[in-house]
């Protein structure tokens, strides 16, 4: 009897937590969609944010969207070659000895570091005057000092943050390439690097792209690094107009806004108190991340089918 009771309680508890989780998930999703969909309109997506305390006058989210795209692009640009080189070394050249495993352990520990620590690290490193190329110099202070906040700085910090995740994913993809491919290439006299470049990497393309997309999702969703290394301004602070090619470099050396910092800024916790706009921007962000996730799923299926 006691057994049956325990069985029942156990089952009931599991059902309860399962249903509770599902309810919470659904209510969060529905809540975000309802709150966000009210705000999102063509106008909301294509207007610049305006500094205004009145919600109706506070404009749209064009600049934050562009900021997110710019940051993701730059971050990927920094992270991709670095992660790919590391992944190739670890999977193809490194082997499985103590030395390579300790290299791997270092990268693994990096994966657990909180993003806020990366954020102050990046901010402090890039205020060094020698690295002022990444941001701008601070004018009018006694000791030479760089501003330490810009798209380039945040992109580089983001690259450090996503590096372990992207590397891990790419390494797995490269490892999954069948040994026979490589042996075939060696047998017809192709050097090791040429084999990697012409045979292994093309065969691992989908896995490598999956890694990149994972990184992109993390960069797009991170707030701590953006808030510290990019600041909370709502417009591009470089020379205007920021979109003409002569100003591109300056734009990247200056600060701006992304969707996450816009959400933080517009929430009741930030200065521009317009929570409805924040929900709108949040929904746009979630849609972007959701699209990236489904792309990962799709690529995953594609790889499995090809291998199977």
């Amino acid at each position, binding site marked *: 009897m006691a057994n049956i009771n*325990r069985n029942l309680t*156990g089952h009931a508890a*599991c059902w309860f*937590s*399962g249903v509770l*989780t*599902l309810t*919470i*998930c659904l209510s969060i999703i529905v*809540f975000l969609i309802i709150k966000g969909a009210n705000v999102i309109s063509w106008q909301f997506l294509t207007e610049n944010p305006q500094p205004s305390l009145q919600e109706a006058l506070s404009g749209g989210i064009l600049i934050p969207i562009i900021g997110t795209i710019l940051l993701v692009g730059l971050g990927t640009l920094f992270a991709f070659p*670095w*992660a790919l*080189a*590391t992944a190739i070394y*670890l999977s193809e050249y490194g082997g499985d000895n103590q030395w390579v495993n300790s*290299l791997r352990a*270092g990268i*693994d*520990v*990096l994966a*657990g*570091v*909180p*993003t*806020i*620590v*990366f954020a*102050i*690290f990046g901010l*402090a490193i890039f*205020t060094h005057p020698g690295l002022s190329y990444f941001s701008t110099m601070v004018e009018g202070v006694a000791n030479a000092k760089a501003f330490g906040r810009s798209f380039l700085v945040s992109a580089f910090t983001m690259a450090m943050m996503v590096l372990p*995740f992207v*590397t*891990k*994913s790419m390494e797995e993809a490269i490892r999954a390439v069948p040994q026979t491919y490589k042996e075939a290439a060696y*047998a*017809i*006299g*192709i*050097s090791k*690097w040429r084999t990697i470049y*012409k045979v292994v990497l093309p065969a691992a393309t989908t896995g490598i792209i999956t890694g990149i997309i994972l990184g992109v999702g993390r960069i797009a*969703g*991170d*707030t*701590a690094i953006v*808030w*510290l290394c990019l600041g909370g301004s709502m417009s591009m602070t470089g020379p205007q107009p920021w979109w003409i090619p002569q100003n591109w470099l300056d734009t990247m050396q200056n600060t701006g806004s992304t969707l996450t910092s816009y*959400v*933080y800024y517009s*929430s*009741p*916790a930030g200065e521009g108190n317009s*929570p409805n706009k924040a*929900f709108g921007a*949040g929904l746009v962000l*979630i849609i972007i*991340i*959701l699209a990236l*996730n489904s792309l990962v799923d799709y690529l995953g299926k594609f790889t499995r089918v090809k291998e199977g």
Partner: protein
Amino acid sequence: MELGKDSTLATGLRKVTSVKGISSSKHWSMKENLIEKLLLAFTLLSSILIFFIIFFVISRGFPVLQASGIHFLTTGGWDKQFTTAWLAGAKQNVATFGALPLISGTFYTTLGALLVAVPFGLGCAIFLTEMCPAWLRKPLESAVRLLAAIPSVIYGLIGLIVIVPFIARNFISNEMALKMIKICALDGTSLLAGIIVLSMMIGPVFITLSSDALMAVPRRYKEASIALGVSHWRTITRVMLPVARKGIMTGAILATGRAIGEAIALSMVAGSVANLPSPAHGLVFFLEPVRTLASTIVDNAEGMGVVSCESALFACGSLLLLSSVMLSVLARLVSSRVSREVR
């Protein structure tokens, strides 16, 4: 497949026999060597980065850690000290700081979130892998994964719009707020709100990892147990959970790491006051505002640039970094193969 112009069958065959690429062509082997060295350089850069970060953060935090000594861990008064240091600017060399409220804030929020998320998460993982009707499984799985992918700032926003006003309306009475007014303001941003939001954030991570671990239990273990006439529930608790133990513990460790490092969402909902909640206040304990180490860095980021403020923030960063390194080592000890991927 395209062959290199300078490659011949002979050199190729020699290459097969000599694995490390000692070929007859000098030019070739130099290029190969160069590429390998280049790749090694990138790899070294990635694995040395963590040591560089640890060194840099601790050395920047060292002045405050040294000046405060053990008091950094055992005394309070952060907000006042920070304002003083900020106003003193460059005139003052290094101030002493007491981070006890921040450390206990981190501890209480993390512990609370774990106490909520781990039992429910484990229940949900068992439900997902063992009891769920087939038609419900896919939607539940994708919902959990979607939740794991939602950025923390959006959780903060939801917490601030929904949970904080709910707490303020239902749990905080005027008398209570009046009684506490000397210590802190009770406005709904509280330890409780922090715990709720944090457990919503780490729950999906834990569910994903522990259901993966349960899914990886070989089917024949379960079948053998059922065939012996052991009930389904007993099979789950006596066979499947022990086998999946490592994976579940790793999931809990990773969830802890995420909870400790969470900055933005907690700075939004947990009150942003370096207040040390006292269990002596009874249940009001949960309604008092707290601030964690990580959200302190976000909230006080304007102090970067003033030497002692910056050093104090880096001291917080060092504590965060040390705990994350310790958790990583623990995760490695618990299972030799750690899957860090939470999509």
